[in-house]
Protein backbone atom coordinates (compact mmCIF):
# COMPACT_ATOMS: atom_id res chain seq x y z
CA UNK A 1 0.00 0.00 0.00
CA UNK A 2 1.03 3.58 -0.60
CA UNK A 3 1.37 4.37 3.10
CA UNK A 4 3.96 1.60 3.48
CA UNK A 5 6.15 3.09 0.78
CA UNK A 6 9.33 4.93 1.61
CA UNK A 7 9.82 8.62 0.93
CA UNK A 8 12.50 7.70 -1.60
CA UNK A 9 10.08 5.50 -3.56
CA UNK A 10 7.26 8.02 -3.35
CA UNK A 11 9.43 10.90 -4.57
CA UNK A 12 10.87 8.75 -7.36
CA UNK A 13 7.45 7.79 -8.62
CA UNK A 14 6.18 11.40 -8.49
CA UNK A 15 9.25 12.71 -10.30
CA UNK A 16 8.84 10.00 -12.91
CA UNK A 17 5.17 10.90 -13.33
CA UNK A 18 4.10 7.38 -12.29
CA UNK A 19 2.02 8.55 -9.36
CA UNK A 20 0.50 11.89 -8.56
CA UNK A 21 1.40 13.79 -5.42
CA UNK A 22 -2.33 14.18 -4.91
CA UNK A 23 -3.10 10.44 -4.80
CA UNK A 24 -0.18 9.90 -2.44
CA UNK A 25 -1.43 12.66 -0.17
CA UNK A 26 -5.01 11.37 -0.24
CA UNK A 27 -3.84 7.89 0.77
CA UNK A 28 -2.06 9.36 3.78
CA UNK A 29 -4.99 11.62 4.68
CA UNK A 30 -7.20 8.53 4.59
CA UNK A 31 -4.85 6.78 7.02
CA UNK A 32 -5.00 9.82 9.27
CA UNK A 33 -8.78 9.83 9.13
CA UNK A 34 -8.88 6.16 10.06
CA UNK A 35 -6.56 6.13 13.07
CA UNK A 36 -5.96 9.69 14.21
CA UNK A 37 -8.94 9.68 16.63
CA UNK A 38 -7.29 6.93 18.72
CA UNK A 39 -3.66 8.11 18.26
CA UNK A 40 -3.97 11.91 18.43
CA UNK A 41 -0.65 12.50 16.67
CA UNK A 42 -1.68 15.90 15.37
CA UNK A 43 -2.69 19.23 16.85
CA UNK A 44 -3.74 20.27 13.37
CA UNK A 45 -4.10 18.45 10.03
CA UNK A 46 -3.69 20.90 7.19
CA UNK A 47 -5.52 18.87 4.52
CA UNK A 48 -6.58 21.79 2.39
CA UNK A 49 -3.24 23.56 2.20
CA UNK A 50 -1.64 20.16 1.60
CA UNK A 51 -4.01 19.34 -1.29
CA UNK A 52 -3.21 22.70 -2.92
CA UNK A 53 0.51 22.05 -2.52
CA UNK A 54 0.18 18.50 -3.93
CA UNK A 55 -1.77 19.76 -6.93
CA UNK A 56 0.93 22.35 -7.54
CA UNK A 57 3.58 19.59 -7.51
CA UNK A 58 1.54 17.63 -10.03
CA UNK A 59 1.21 20.68 -12.26
CA UNK A 60 4.96 21.20 -12.15
CA UNK A 61 5.67 17.56 -13.00
CA UNK A 62 3.20 17.81 -15.89
CA UNK A 63 5.02 20.93 -17.06
CA UNK A 64 8.28 18.98 -17.16
CA UNK A 65 9.76 20.53 -14.02
CA UNK A 66 11.48 18.61 -11.23
CA UNK A 67 9.91 19.61 -7.90
CA UNK A 68 12.88 18.26 -5.97
CA UNK A 69 14.12 15.27 -3.99
CA UNK A 70 11.02 15.13 -1.77
CA UNK A 71 8.52 15.66 -4.61
CA UNK A 72 5.06 14.87 -3.31
CA UNK A 73 6.31 13.33 -0.06
CA UNK A 74 3.91 13.98 2.83
CA UNK A 75 5.69 15.15 5.97
CA UNK A 76 4.44 15.89 9.48
CA UNK A 77 5.92 18.83 11.39
CA UNK A 78 6.34 19.05 15.12
CA UNK A 79 4.12 21.86 16.36
CA UNK A 80 7.07 23.88 17.63
CA UNK A 81 8.19 24.68 14.06
CA UNK A 82 6.87 28.00 12.77
CA UNK A 83 4.60 27.78 9.76
CA UNK A 84 3.42 30.99 8.17
CA UNK A 85 -0.30 31.57 8.64
CA UNK A 86 -0.75 28.12 10.21
CA UNK A 87 -1.37 27.89 13.95
CA UNK A 88 1.77 26.95 15.86
CA UNK A 89 1.10 26.10 19.49
CA UNK A 90 3.94 24.14 21.13
CA UNK A 91 0.98 22.26 22.62
CA UNK A 92 0.57 25.14 25.02
CA UNK A 93 -2.47 27.19 25.87
CA UNK A 94 -0.26 30.24 25.99
CA UNK A 95 0.24 30.16 22.20
CA UNK A 96 -3.30 29.03 21.39
CA UNK A 97 -4.40 30.69 18.18
CA UNK A 98 -1.05 32.20 17.27
CA UNK A 99 -0.26 32.21 13.56
CA UNK A 100 3.39 32.96 12.86
CA UNK A 101 4.07 35.53 10.13
CA UNK A 102 7.00 33.47 8.87
CA UNK A 103 8.21 29.95 8.06
CA UNK A 104 11.05 28.19 9.86
CA UNK A 105 14.12 27.65 7.65
CA UNK A 106 13.54 23.87 7.63
CA UNK A 107 9.92 24.41 6.57
CA UNK A 108 11.10 26.58 3.67
CA UNK A 109 13.68 24.00 2.66
CA UNK A 110 11.16 21.15 2.75
CA UNK A 111 8.73 23.10 0.58
CA UNK A 112 11.53 23.97 -1.84
CA UNK A 113 12.34 20.24 -2.09
CA UNK A 114 8.73 19.41 -3.01
CA UNK A 115 7.58 17.98 0.35
CA UNK A 116 3.93 18.34 1.36
CA UNK A 117 3.32 19.34 4.99
CA UNK A 118 0.27 17.43 6.24
CA UNK A 119 -0.02 18.86 9.72
CA UNK A 120 1.42 19.95 13.04
CA UNK A 121 2.17 17.15 15.47
CA UNK A 122 1.53 16.97 19.18
CA UNK A 123 4.36 17.34 21.71
CA UNK A 124 4.99 17.77 25.39
CA UNK A 125 4.32 21.47 26.04
CA UNK A 126 7.32 23.45 24.76
CA UNK A 127 9.07 20.10 24.19
CA UNK A 128 9.40 19.51 27.93
CA UNK A 129 8.72 15.87 28.61
CA UNK A 130 9.36 12.30 27.58
CA UNK A 131 5.86 10.95 26.99
CA UNK A 132 3.81 13.61 25.14
CA UNK A 133 1.46 13.55 28.13
CA UNK A 134 2.36 17.18 28.99
CA UNK A 135 0.32 18.52 26.08
CA UNK A 136 -2.39 21.09 26.70
CA UNK A 137 -4.38 19.29 24.00
CA UNK A 138 -4.25 15.76 25.43
CA UNK A 139 -1.71 12.94 25.06
CA UNK A 140 -0.61 11.11 21.93
CA UNK A 141 -0.80 7.31 22.03
CA UNK A 142 1.66 4.73 20.78
CA UNK A 143 0.46 3.21 17.48
CA UNK A 144 1.87 -0.17 18.52
CA UNK A 145 -0.23 -0.20 21.72
CA UNK A 146 -2.56 2.68 22.42
CA UNK A 147 -2.41 2.10 26.17
CA UNK A 148 1.26 3.11 25.97
CA UNK A 149 2.94 6.45 25.50
CA UNK A 150 4.78 7.19 22.25
CA UNK A 151 7.65 8.77 24.14
CA UNK A 152 8.41 12.45 23.91
CA UNK A 153 8.64 15.20 23.47
CA UNK A 154 8.24 14.62 19.71
CA UNK A 155 5.66 11.88 20.37
CA UNK A 156 3.27 13.10 17.68
CA UNK A 157 5.96 13.12 15.00
CA UNK A 158 7.17 9.63 15.96
CA UNK A 159 3.63 8.25 16.13
CA UNK A 160 2.63 9.78 12.81
CA UNK A 161 5.46 7.98 11.02
CA UNK A 162 4.87 4.71 12.88
CA UNK A 163 1.16 4.86 12.03
CA UNK A 164 1.70 5.63 8.35
CA UNK A 165 0.25 9.14 8.54
CA UNK A 166 3.39 10.30 6.73
CA UNK A 167 6.53 8.44 5.67
CA UNK A 168 8.72 11.06 7.34
CA UNK A 169 8.37 13.81 9.92
CA UNK A 170 10.42 16.41 11.77
CA UNK A 171 11.00 16.63 15.48
CA UNK A 172 13.32 18.52 17.78
CA UNK A 173 15.74 16.99 20.24
CA UNK A 174 16.98 18.85 23.32
CA UNK A 175 17.69 15.89 25.59
CA UNK A 176 16.44 12.95 23.52
CA UNK A 177 13.12 14.25 22.23
CA UNK A 178 13.63 12.68 18.78
CA UNK A 179 15.55 9.52 19.68
CA UNK A 180 13.51 8.35 22.67
CA UNK A 181 10.08 8.52 20.93
CA UNK A 182 11.67 6.97 17.81
CA UNK A 183 12.77 4.06 19.98
CA UNK A 184 9.38 3.71 21.66
CA UNK A 185 7.49 3.91 18.36
CA UNK A 186 9.86 1.64 16.40
CA UNK A 187 11.07 4.18 13.88
CA UNK A 188 14.39 5.81 12.96
CA UNK A 189 15.09 9.15 14.66
CA UNK A 190 18.12 11.38 14.14
CA UNK A 191 19.59 14.18 16.24
CA UNK A 192 22.21 15.79 13.98
CA UNK A 193 25.38 17.55 15.10
CA UNK A 194 24.52 20.83 16.86
CA UNK A 195 24.58 23.55 14.22
CA UNK A 196 24.07 21.26 11.24
CA UNK A 197 20.37 22.13 10.92
CA UNK A 198 19.19 25.72 11.29
CA UNK A 199 17.14 26.47 14.40
CA UNK A 200 15.58 29.56 12.82
CA UNK A 201 11.85 29.14 13.35
CA UNK A 202 12.15 26.37 15.91
CA UNK A 203 10.48 27.68 19.05
CA UNK A 204 13.27 27.55 21.60
CA UNK A 205 13.33 25.30 24.63
CA UNK A 206 17.07 25.31 25.44
CA UNK A 207 18.99 27.13 22.74
CA UNK A 208 22.41 25.55 23.26
CA UNK A 209 20.94 22.03 23.12
CA UNK A 210 18.00 22.16 20.65
CA UNK A 211 18.44 20.51 17.28
CA UNK A 212 15.88 19.66 14.59
CA UNK A 213 16.02 16.21 13.00
CA UNK A 214 14.02 13.68 10.99
CA UNK A 215 11.92 10.63 11.76
CA UNK A 216 11.50 7.92 9.12
CA UNK A 217 10.74 4.25 8.81
CA UNK A 218 14.02 3.62 7.01
CA UNK A 219 17.56 4.85 7.53
CA UNK A 220 17.78 5.97 3.90
CA UNK A 221 14.66 8.13 4.23
CA UNK A 222 16.06 9.77 7.34
CA UNK A 223 19.28 10.52 5.44
CA UNK A 224 17.30 12.00 2.56
CA UNK A 225 15.37 14.39 4.80
CA UNK A 226 18.52 15.34 6.71
CA UNK A 227 20.21 16.34 3.46
CA UNK A 228 17.24 18.52 2.53
CA UNK A 229 16.94 20.37 5.84
CA UNK A 230 20.65 20.56 6.76
CA UNK A 231 23.33 23.04 5.79
CA UNK A 232 24.36 26.54 6.72
CA UNK A 233 21.74 29.22 7.35
CA UNK A 234 22.85 32.84 7.85
CA UNK A 235 19.71 33.45 9.94
CA UNK A 236 21.06 31.19 12.71
CA UNK A 237 24.32 32.45 14.23
CA UNK A 238 25.06 28.98 15.62
CA UNK A 239 24.62 27.33 12.24
CA UNK A 240 27.89 25.74 11.11
CA UNK A 241 29.26 27.12 7.85
CA UNK A 242 30.63 23.89 6.49
CA UNK A 243 29.37 21.35 4.00
CA UNK A 244 26.89 18.71 5.10
CA UNK A 245 28.46 15.27 5.67
CA UNK A 246 27.69 13.25 2.50
CA UNK A 247 25.59 10.70 4.34
CA UNK A 248 23.63 9.20 1.45
CA UNK A 249 26.74 8.61 -0.62
CA UNK A 250 28.12 6.23 2.01
CA UNK A 251 24.95 4.50 3.25
CA UNK A 252 25.91 1.18 1.67
CA UNK A 253 29.58 1.25 2.64
CA UNK A 254 29.09 -1.32 5.43
CA UNK A 255 30.98 -1.31 8.71
CA UNK A 256 34.03 -3.42 7.94
CA UNK A 257 36.93 -2.08 10.00
CA UNK A 258 34.80 0.47 11.81
CA UNK A 259 35.57 0.62 15.54
CA UNK A 260 32.37 0.44 17.60
CA UNK A 261 32.37 0.99 21.38
CA UNK A 262 29.53 0.03 23.73
CA UNK A 263 29.26 2.78 26.35
CA UNK A 264 29.53 0.95 29.65
CA UNK A 265 28.16 3.83 31.73
CA UNK A 266 24.94 3.81 29.66
CA UNK A 267 24.46 0.07 29.46
CA UNK A 268 24.34 -1.28 32.99
CA UNK A 269 22.30 -0.16 35.97
CA UNK A 270 18.84 1.13 35.24
CA UNK A 271 18.57 -0.47 31.81
CA UNK A 272 15.84 -3.10 31.43
CA UNK A 273 17.34 -6.56 30.69
CA UNK A 274 15.36 -7.07 27.49
CA UNK A 275 16.58 -3.71 26.17
CA UNK A 276 20.18 -4.47 27.19
CA UNK A 277 19.97 -7.80 25.40
CA UNK A 278 18.96 -6.13 22.15
CA UNK A 279 21.91 -3.76 22.40
CA UNK A 280 24.25 -6.75 22.78
CA UNK A 281 22.65 -8.40 19.76
CA UNK A 282 23.09 -5.20 17.79
CA UNK A 283 26.77 -5.17 18.68
CA UNK A 284 27.04 -8.79 17.57
CA UNK A 285 25.37 -7.93 14.27
CA UNK A 286 27.93 -5.18 13.70
CA UNK A 287 30.79 -7.49 14.60
CA UNK A 288 29.40 -10.05 12.16
CA UNK A 289 29.46 -7.35 9.49
CA UNK A 290 33.16 -6.74 10.13
CA UNK A 291 33.17 -3.99 12.78
CA UNK A 292 35.66 -4.11 15.65
CA UNK A 293 33.45 -4.01 18.73
CA UNK A 294 34.76 -3.15 22.18
CA UNK A 295 33.76 -1.55 25.46
CA UNK A 296 33.99 2.23 25.72
CA UNK A 297 33.97 4.45 28.77
CA UNK A 298 32.52 7.94 29.08
CA UNK A 299 32.77 8.39 32.86
CA UNK A 300 31.24 11.89 33.06
CA UNK A 301 28.14 10.69 31.19
CA UNK A 302 26.61 9.70 34.52
CA UNK A 303 26.51 13.38 35.48
CA UNK A 304 24.73 14.29 32.26
CA UNK A 305 21.23 14.07 33.67
CA UNK A 306 21.96 16.42 36.57
CA UNK A 307 23.81 18.91 34.39
CA UNK A 308 21.06 18.82 31.78
CA UNK A 309 18.30 19.47 34.31
CA UNK A 310 20.10 22.65 35.36
CA UNK A 311 21.21 23.95 31.94
CA UNK A 312 18.07 23.26 29.95
CA UNK A 313 15.66 24.80 32.50
CA UNK A 314 17.97 27.81 32.92
CA UNK A 315 17.89 28.61 29.22
CA UNK A 316 14.18 27.77 29.08
CA UNK A 317 13.35 30.15 31.94
CA UNK A 318 14.71 32.98 29.80
CA UNK A 319 13.41 31.72 26.44
CA UNK A 320 9.89 31.43 27.80
CA UNK A 321 9.81 34.87 29.45
CA UNK A 322 8.42 36.42 26.26
CA UNK A 323 5.05 34.71 26.75
CA UNK A 324 3.72 37.64 28.71
CA UNK A 325 0.37 38.37 27.05
CA UNK A 326 1.52 41.59 25.40
CA UNK A 327 2.14 40.83 21.72
CA UNK A 328 0.57 37.48 20.73
CA UNK A 329 -1.13 34.39 22.09
CA UNK A 330 -3.05 34.21 25.33
CA UNK A 331 -3.79 37.21 27.52
CA UNK A 332 -5.63 36.96 30.82
CA UNK A 333 -6.57 40.53 31.63
CA UNK A 334 -5.84 42.32 34.86
CA UNK A 335 -5.82 45.88 36.17
CA UNK A 336 -2.10 46.35 35.56
CA UNK A 337 0.57 44.84 33.34
CA UNK A 338 2.59 42.93 35.97
CA UNK A 339 -0.61 41.21 37.13
CA UNK A 340 -1.64 40.60 33.53
CA UNK A 341 1.74 38.91 32.91
CA UNK A 342 1.31 36.85 36.06
CA UNK A 343 -2.22 35.68 35.33
CA UNK A 344 -1.45 34.96 31.68
CA UNK A 345 1.55 32.83 32.50
CA UNK A 346 -0.15 31.12 35.43
CA UNK A 347 -3.09 30.06 33.28
CA UNK A 348 -1.16 29.58 30.06
CA UNK A 349 1.61 27.22 31.16
CA UNK A 350 1.18 23.65 32.36
CA UNK A 351 2.81 22.25 35.50
CA UNK A 352 5.90 20.75 33.84
CA UNK A 353 6.71 24.04 32.12
CA UNK A 354 6.23 25.92 35.38
CA UNK A 355 8.47 23.45 37.18
CA UNK A 356 11.27 23.92 34.70
CA UNK A 357 10.91 27.69 34.56
CA UNK A 358 11.21 27.84 38.34
CA UNK A 359 14.11 25.39 38.39
CA UNK A 360 15.94 27.42 35.76
CA UNK A 361 15.18 30.74 37.41
CA UNK A 362 16.60 29.34 40.62
CA UNK A 363 19.71 27.92 38.91
CA UNK A 364 20.48 31.35 37.41
CA UNK A 365 19.60 33.50 40.36
CA UNK A 366 22.13 35.48 42.33
CA UNK A 367 23.83 33.34 44.91
CA UNK A 368 23.12 30.03 43.17
CA UNK A 369 24.60 30.60 39.72
CA UNK A 370 28.02 29.19 40.56
CA UNK A 371 26.70 26.22 42.50
CA UNK A 372 24.21 25.16 39.85
CA UNK A 373 24.36 26.73 36.38
CA UNK A 374 28.09 27.46 36.46
CA UNK A 375 28.83 23.99 37.76
CA UNK A 376 26.63 22.33 35.17
CA UNK A 377 28.52 24.13 32.41
CA UNK A 378 31.77 22.75 33.76
CA UNK A 379 30.32 19.26 33.81
CA UNK A 380 29.44 19.87 30.20
CA UNK A 381 33.13 20.41 29.54
CA UNK A 382 33.96 17.13 31.31
CA UNK A 383 31.46 15.23 29.19
CA UNK A 384 32.90 16.73 26.01
CA UNK A 385 36.40 15.72 27.11
CA UNK A 386 35.35 12.18 27.96
CA UNK A 387 33.61 11.73 24.63
CA UNK A 388 36.70 13.08 22.85
CA UNK A 389 38.83 10.52 24.67
CA UNK A 390 36.43 7.70 23.74
CA UNK A 391 36.46 8.78 20.10
CA UNK A 392 40.20 8.38 20.02
CA UNK A 393 39.59 4.65 20.35
CA UNK A 394 36.28 4.29 18.57
CA UNK A 395 34.63 5.68 15.45
CA UNK A 396 31.11 5.35 16.84
CA UNK A 397 29.55 4.41 20.16
CA UNK A 398 26.54 2.26 20.95
CA UNK A 399 23.99 2.33 23.79
CA UNK A 400 20.31 1.76 24.41
CA UNK A 401 18.21 4.77 23.36
CA UNK A 402 15.75 4.42 26.23
CA UNK A 403 16.11 2.35 29.40
CA UNK A 404 12.77 0.63 28.73
CA UNK A 405 10.22 0.03 26.00
CA UNK A 406 7.07 2.19 25.92
CA UNK A 407 5.42 2.55 29.31
CA UNK A 408 1.74 3.00 30.12
CA UNK A 409 0.07 6.42 30.06
CA UNK A 410 0.01 7.90 33.55
CA UNK A 411 2.80 5.61 34.81
CA UNK A 412 5.38 8.32 35.43
CA UNK A 413 3.41 11.55 35.55
CA UNK A 414 3.33 11.74 39.33
CA UNK A 415 7.08 11.88 39.82
CA UNK A 416 9.02 14.22 37.54
CA UNK A 417 12.41 12.76 38.46
CA UNK A 418 11.35 9.25 37.36
CA UNK A 419 10.23 10.72 34.05
CA UNK A 420 13.54 12.57 33.66
CA UNK A 421 15.46 9.29 34.06
CA UNK A 422 14.09 8.23 30.64
CA UNK A 423 16.59 10.62 29.08
CA UNK A 424 19.71 9.29 30.78
CA UNK A 425 21.14 7.70 27.60
CA UNK A 426 20.22 10.47 25.19
CA UNK A 427 21.20 13.59 27.15
CA UNK A 428 25.01 13.28 26.91
CA UNK A 429 24.98 13.81 23.12
CA UNK A 430 23.03 17.04 23.49
CA UNK A 431 25.44 18.35 26.09
CA UNK A 432 28.37 17.46 23.83
CA UNK A 433 26.67 18.75 20.67
CA UNK A 434 27.39 15.44 18.94
CA UNK A 435 25.11 13.55 16.57
CA UNK A 436 23.20 10.46 17.66
CA UNK A 437 20.36 8.43 16.25
CA UNK A 438 17.99 5.71 17.30
CA UNK A 439 17.47 2.65 15.10
CA UNK A 440 14.77 0.07 15.80
CA UNK A 441 16.26 -3.29 16.73
CA UNK A 442 13.67 -5.91 17.49
CA UNK A 443 11.25 -5.87 20.41
CA UNK A 444 11.27 -6.23 24.17
CA UNK A 445 9.60 -8.95 26.23
CA UNK A 446 6.34 -7.04 25.88
CA UNK A 447 6.53 -7.16 22.09
CA UNK A 448 7.09 -3.40 21.86
CA UNK A 449 9.91 -1.85 19.85
CA UNK A 450 13.43 -1.43 21.21
CA UNK A 451 15.74 1.26 19.89
CA UNK A 452 19.51 1.13 19.73
CA UNK A 453 21.35 4.42 19.90
CA UNK A 454 24.32 5.08 17.62
CA UNK A 455 26.51 7.98 18.76
CA UNK A 456 29.24 9.69 16.76
CA UNK A 457 31.60 12.63 17.16
CA UNK A 458 30.66 16.02 15.70
CA UNK A 459 30.17 15.76 11.91
CA UNK A 460 30.47 11.98 12.22
CA UNK A 461 27.07 11.48 10.55
CA UNK A 462 28.57 9.41 7.73
CA UNK A 463 29.85 6.67 10.04
CA UNK A 464 26.76 6.93 12.23
CA UNK A 465 24.47 6.26 9.25
CA UNK A 466 26.70 3.41 7.99
CA UNK A 467 26.22 1.66 11.33
CA UNK A 468 22.50 2.41 11.32
CA UNK A 469 22.12 0.95 7.84
CA UNK A 470 23.79 -2.30 8.90
CA UNK A 471 21.59 -2.53 12.01
CA UNK A 472 18.52 -1.94 9.88
CA UNK A 473 19.53 -4.72 7.54
CA UNK A 474 20.00 -7.06 10.50
CA UNK A 475 16.59 -6.29 12.01
CA UNK A 476 14.40 -4.70 9.38
CA UNK A 477 11.22 -2.83 10.15
CA UNK A 478 9.79 -0.56 7.51
CA UNK A 479 6.12 -1.48 7.70
CA UNK A 480 3.45 0.61 9.33
CA UNK A 481 2.03 -0.25 12.75
CA UNK A 482 -1.63 -1.13 12.28
Amino acid sequence: MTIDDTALDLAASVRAGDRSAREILDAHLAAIEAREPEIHAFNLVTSEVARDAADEIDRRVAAGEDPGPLAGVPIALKDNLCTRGVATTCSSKILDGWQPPYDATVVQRLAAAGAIAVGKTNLDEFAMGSSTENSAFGPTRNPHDTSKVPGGSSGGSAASVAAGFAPVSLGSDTGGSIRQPAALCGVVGVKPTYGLVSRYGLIAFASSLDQIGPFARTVADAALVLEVIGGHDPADTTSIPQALPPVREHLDDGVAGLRVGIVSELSGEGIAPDVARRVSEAAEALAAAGAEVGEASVPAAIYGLSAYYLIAPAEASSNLARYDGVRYGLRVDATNTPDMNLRTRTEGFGDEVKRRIMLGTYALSAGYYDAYYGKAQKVRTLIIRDFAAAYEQFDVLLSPTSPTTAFALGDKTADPLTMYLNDVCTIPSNLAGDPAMSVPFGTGDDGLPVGVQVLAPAFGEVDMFRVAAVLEAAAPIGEVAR
Partner: protein
Amino acid sequence: MSAPISRDEVAHVANLARLQLTDDELDHFTDQLGAVLEHARDVAALDTSDVPPTAHPYELTNVLRPDEVRPTLDRDEVMAQAPASEDGMFRVPPVLGEAP
Protein backbone atom coordinates in the same frame (compact mmCIF):
# COMPACT_ATOMS: atom_id res chain seq x y z
CA MET B 1 21.39 17.52 55.06
CA SER B 2 19.14 20.53 54.64
CA ALA B 3 16.46 20.63 51.96
CA PRO B 4 18.02 21.90 48.72
CA ILE B 5 15.33 24.54 48.24
CA SER B 6 12.92 26.09 50.74
CA ARG B 7 9.28 26.96 50.30
CA ASP B 8 10.19 30.66 50.51
CA GLU B 9 12.78 30.28 47.78
CA VAL B 10 10.24 28.60 45.53
CA ALA B 11 7.84 31.47 46.20
CA HIS B 12 10.63 33.91 45.37
CA VAL B 13 11.54 32.29 42.03
CA ALA B 14 7.86 31.97 41.11
CA ASN B 15 7.56 35.69 41.67
CA LEU B 16 10.68 36.42 39.60
CA ALA B 17 9.25 34.27 36.79
CA ARG B 18 5.78 35.89 37.05
CA LEU B 19 4.02 32.71 38.11
CA GLN B 20 1.39 32.53 40.80
CA LEU B 21 1.22 29.46 43.02
CA THR B 22 -1.49 28.32 45.41
CA ASP B 23 -0.38 27.08 48.83
CA ASP B 24 -0.85 23.48 47.68
CA GLU B 25 1.16 24.09 44.53
CA LEU B 26 3.87 25.75 46.56
CA ASP B 27 4.10 22.62 48.73
CA HIS B 28 4.30 20.10 45.94
CA PHE B 29 6.57 22.22 43.73
CA THR B 30 8.92 22.63 46.68
CA ASP B 31 9.06 18.85 47.06
CA GLN B 32 9.53 18.21 43.34
CA LEU B 33 12.18 20.88 42.77
CA GLY B 34 13.90 19.66 45.91
CA ALA B 35 14.06 16.11 44.49
CA VAL B 36 15.62 17.33 41.23
CA LEU B 37 18.14 19.53 43.04
CA GLU B 38 18.88 16.66 45.42
CA HIS B 39 19.73 14.54 42.40
CA ALA B 40 21.96 17.37 41.17
CA ARG B 41 24.03 17.18 44.35
CA ASP B 42 26.33 14.65 42.66
CA VAL B 43 27.26 17.45 40.28
CA ALA B 44 27.58 20.03 43.03
CA ALA B 45 30.01 17.70 44.82
CA LEU B 46 32.35 17.32 41.81
CA ASP B 47 35.67 19.10 41.96
CA THR B 48 35.71 21.17 38.80
CA SER B 49 38.03 23.95 39.94
CA ASP B 50 40.31 23.57 36.90
CA VAL B 51 37.55 23.00 34.39
CA PRO B 52 36.40 25.84 32.15
CA PRO B 53 32.64 26.14 31.57
CA THR B 54 31.08 25.28 28.21
CA ALA B 55 28.29 27.60 27.12
CA HIS B 56 28.19 26.24 23.62
CA PRO B 57 29.10 22.90 22.05
CA TYR B 58 31.07 24.41 19.17
CA GLU B 59 33.00 27.59 19.50
CA LEU B 60 32.30 29.80 16.53
CA THR B 61 33.30 33.48 16.77
CA ASN B 62 32.55 36.72 14.94
CA VAL B 63 29.43 35.57 13.14
CA LEU B 64 28.18 38.86 11.72
CA ARG B 65 25.79 40.05 9.06
CA PRO B 66 26.23 43.02 6.73
CA ASP B 67 24.44 46.23 7.78
CA GLU B 68 21.81 45.97 5.05
CA VAL B 69 18.11 46.70 5.33
CA ARG B 70 15.79 43.71 4.93
CA PRO B 71 12.03 43.64 4.47
CA THR B 72 9.95 44.37 7.56
CA LEU B 73 6.69 42.67 8.48
CA ASP B 74 3.33 43.99 7.37
CA ARG B 75 1.92 45.87 10.34
CA ASP B 76 -1.60 44.53 9.87
CA GLU B 77 -0.27 40.98 10.00
CA VAL B 78 1.63 41.80 13.21
CA MET B 79 -1.24 43.58 14.92
CA ALA B 80 -3.72 40.86 13.95
CA GLN B 81 -1.97 38.66 16.54
CA ALA B 82 -2.10 41.29 19.31
CA PRO B 83 -4.40 40.53 22.26
CA ALA B 84 -5.24 44.27 22.33
CA SER B 85 -4.17 47.14 20.12
CA GLU B 86 -4.86 50.78 19.36
CA ASP B 87 -3.52 53.06 16.62
CA GLY B 88 -1.10 50.41 15.37
CA MET B 89 0.36 49.89 18.84
CA PHE B 90 0.10 47.11 21.41
CA ARG B 91 -2.22 48.09 24.22
CA VAL B 92 -1.44 47.00 27.77
CA PRO B 93 -2.95 47.82 31.16
CA PRO B 94 -1.05 50.37 33.32
CA VAL B 95 2.61 49.40 33.64
CA LEU B 96 2.87 50.93 37.15
CA GLY B 97 6.48 52.07 36.91
CA GLU B 98 9.53 52.66 34.76
CA ALA B 99 11.74 49.84 33.58
CA PRO B 100 14.59 49.02 35.99
